[in-house]
């Protein structure tokens, strides 16, 4: 994609911010070694340097394929990703010292694996940027993506628990020591499908209505897809035993629907349906049990984690939640310092509870900075959605950013006891490939859309000389939205 002279690409700003982020990651690594090993080893800078090379690679790809992309996204995500790798390496070092083993190499342990996952994720992100030169091309494959998304969501639900269940939630596909969370990728596919579907249907959904009790209700036949998705998310809730994932899918759909139609009634209907469904599931869990029991237990644990009944229960107890809270509380305002905490007291501290483990060491101030970084990423994504000119791009960027924000809220709110705990990964921080890959693909998509938003050409990017090879479907550009049939 050729650059237009005189327009600011801000790629050098991105490079500078990236360098600053990597300096922070290196400093974090040094502090960890000083606290854990008692000295800073001569190789403390190697993980940060390797990450720098990887992110620099992505930066170069962006420089040539999306020169006008938002310059803040990559450095902000890189900093979080780098801290994640650093914290996981810190766990490796702590475990090795505990077992009186030598300090693990940079490529071994969960830290090393996370480094490898980062490499793969960045390659995927780069490939997406190279292949999808214009985000509107994605809409061509909307139905394929929609079907893929639903299949990905449903896979763990239909698989036997021995393959798909971890800690009571059926979100996984495990083959040997290798495991993926297909739901992470489903987000991307479903957002693309919703965006395409809603761009086509927005007129119908926003205009055709009956007024009941002061709220504009849509026509019954247009409600079909909404109800389908609602049922799907409740099925996820029941069969995958995970409120967070259900909330995520449903929130994703309701928000894209609301953005597309600009009608608050969709929000109200959506929220009522969801919370009604959740409440019914809670009541069923209390009375019937069965598939709802796990959900009821989690709600009980959330309401009073410190009661000895909830803490000492054999299954579905509050042990993990309590240990996470104690870890955060022990950290206090300033934290114990990187490497100086005791994160292994928190079960699953490398996955769902990484925020609690990091929180003990960097304290309230550090976590507030981390929250601000996440907020920055999400709001930057929403800004791209505001600035991009086509409806499909707006919906995809808006949906993806909002989902990212919602996922952060669901997992961090769960860990800190704000909402019932659900098994979500913390984006860019948790150990694990699927989360990292899916979220980097999400960032790549946002980069692509922000490039279109901030770039020079008005209207469809594909019409530009030298743009993406394939032409996007015409109906996305105004004329061919479905008309109202009385």
């Amino acid at each position, binding site marked *: 994609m050729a650059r237009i002279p005189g327009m600011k690409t801000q790629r050098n700003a991105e490079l500078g911010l990236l360098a600053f982020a990597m300096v922070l990651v290196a400093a974090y690594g040094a502090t960890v070694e000083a606290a854990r090993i008692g000295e800073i080893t001569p190789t403390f800078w190697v993980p940060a340097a390797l990450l720098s090379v990887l992110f620099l690679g992505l930066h170069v790809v962006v420089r040539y394929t999306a020169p006008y992309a938002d310059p803040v996204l990559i450095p902000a995500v890189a900093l979080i990703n780098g801290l994640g790798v650093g914290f996981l390496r810190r766990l490796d070092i702590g475990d090795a010292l505990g077992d009186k083993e030598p300090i693990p190499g940079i490529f071994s342990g969960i830290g090393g694996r996370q480094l490898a996952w980062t490499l793969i994720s960045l390659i995927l992100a780069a490939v997406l940027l190279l292949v999808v030169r214009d985000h509107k091309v994605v809409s061509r494959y909307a139905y394929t993506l929609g079907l893929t998304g639903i299949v990905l969501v449903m896979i763990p639900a239909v698989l036997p628990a021995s393959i798909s269940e971890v800690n009571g939630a059926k979100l996984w596909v495990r083959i040997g020591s290798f495991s993926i969370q297909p739901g992470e990728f489903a987000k991307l596919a479903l957002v693309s499908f919703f965006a395409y579907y809603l761009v086509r249907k927005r007129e119908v959904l926003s205009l055709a209505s009956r007024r009941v009790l002061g709220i504009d209700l849509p026509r019954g036949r247009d409600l079909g897809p909404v109800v389908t998705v609602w049922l799907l998310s409740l099925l996820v809730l029941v069969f995958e035993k995970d409120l967070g994932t259900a909330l995520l899918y449903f929130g994703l759909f309701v928000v894209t629907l609301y953005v597309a139609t600009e009608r608050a009634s969709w929000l109200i209907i959506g929220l009522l349906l969801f919370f009604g469904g959740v409440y019914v599931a809670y009541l069923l869990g209390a009375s019937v049990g069965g598939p709802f029991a796990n959900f009821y237990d989690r709600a009980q644990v959330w309401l009073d984690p410190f009661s000895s009944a909830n803490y000492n229960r054999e299954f579905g107890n509050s042990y993990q939640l309590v240990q996470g809270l*104690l870890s955060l509380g022990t*950290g206090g305002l300033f934290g114990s310092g990187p490497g100086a905490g005791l994160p292994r007291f928190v079960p699953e501290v490398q996955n769902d509870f990484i925020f609690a483990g990091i929180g003990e060491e960097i304290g309230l101030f550090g976590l507030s900075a981390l929250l601000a970084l996440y907020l920055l990423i999400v709001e930057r994504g929403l800004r791209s959605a505001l600035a991009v000119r086509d409806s499909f791009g707006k919906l995809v960027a808006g949906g993806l950013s909002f989902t990212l924000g919602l996922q952060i809220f669901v997992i961090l709110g769960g860990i800190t006891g704000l909402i019932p705990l659900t098994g979500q990964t913390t984006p860019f921080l948790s150990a694990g490939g699927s989360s990292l890959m899916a979220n980097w693909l999400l960032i790549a998509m946002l980069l692509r859309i922000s490039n279109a938003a901030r770039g020079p050409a008005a209207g469809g990017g594909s019409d530009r000389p030298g743009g993406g090879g394939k032409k996007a479907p015409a109906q996305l550009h105004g004329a061919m939205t479905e008309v109202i049939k009385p």
Partner: protein
Amino acid sequence: MNAPLRRAGVVILVLFALLFANLNWVQAYKADDYRTSDYNRRVVVAQYERPRGIIEAGGTGVATNRSTDDALKYLRVYPRKEVYAPVLGYRPVGLGATGIEHSENDFLSGESDKLFADRVKDMFTGNNTGGGNVLLTINSKAQETAWKELVNNERGVDKGAAIAIDPRTGAVQAMVSMPSFDPNTLVTHDEKAAAAAYGKLNKDPDQPLLNRTTAETLPPGSTFKVIVSAAALQNGYTTESEIEAGREYRESGAVIRNSEDEVCPGGQIDLKEALTESCNTGYARLGVTLGRDKVLAAAKNFGFQDDQLTVGNLEGGGLPVAASDTGKITNPDGTVDKGALAQSSIGQRDVRMTPLQGAMIAAAVANGGKQQRPYLVQKLLTPDLRTIYTANPKTLRTPVNEQVASDLKDMMVSVVQNGTGRRARISGMEVGGKTGTAENAAGADPHGWFIGFAFDDKGEAVSAVCVMLENVPGGHASAEAARIAGLIMKAAAGRGGD
């Protein structure tokens, strides 16, 4: 579409604001609660960050530390295992301690106000100098002798206790309880193993975790006659006063006989001879003649009914001591139960005594009537071995005056010279005492007791002792207790042992 997008942005802002507010709640407002929560393992780890103070007896550490490589940096070690367990107690991971480990916990852990200056110094030097050290009054030779002789007793008894105190100060010289336990198994960092070991000890019917010197009360038998003698001497009797004896004494349905037919079969016997031979009929009748109130008052003066006593630090804290009890000796209508009084006067019926109480009776007699408050903590030392506390002996009570004490001493010396306590004799020392053979349950062997004291060649009261063996088979239950008592006192005087 931009207006709803902006609103979605506002929703995200609100959600993050909620997260931020809640994070403040968790990490600032509730931080102290969480930091010190019982569920927080870091509390335990923090306790092991600096070495706990050492407990010393006779110049050697009996509770020490070994550094480890696990999360808890120091392992508590008790090198003498069972021998000192009743004194030291133990300090398990994440649970409350017992014994001196419990009563001196603040000082040993370094949290005591007395060590404030050391903690401030630590802050500036960056060192973790550890907790303060506790120096016990225990005489290691007497302690080892007591344990060795108790477990190797000649009658094969498996339960018993021995305690020795310095009559002049109240300093505890030896305190052993059998069966005992190895505290090392309870303080291991493998908490599951520790819990299993505790469960096993706790279920053992012989109660190895019980400190029998302070926490168990048993019928004292004839050792109680020292109390009745004191009551008599305080009420006009002398050691030569003749009292009525005989083969048998019936009183309000109670029948008192002597242990053997040849003991005081005649009608009259003097007080000294009655104690020397341990004449049951004489003492039962004497108690009834004196009356309930005088006997109970004498017992109370010697420390019976005291449920406030602790043995540890004279400034407060220590092992709790069960109250020794005389029983009410009262009929349901409030009048004196003479039958019970007759039986109580020879230490039976409802009379119960701790071995510590027995030693305190002997100590008061040896110390001219002044009963010193018993204690275990001689000194407290800072980590850099500066003494910040030295025990200053205190008189607990004065049960008898010097004259009565002197008479009681003569009578008790006669017991060891000529009477039932002959096996407690130590060559070159003046030893006095009183034996006791206590019936307890129907068909069970009696408990054997000995309470006594020893004077060295300079006339100093160097040790007072009580040895108790439960359910001694084969008759003459108190003889073995007297033999062990003699050896302990000899060791305490620095003359015996190895």
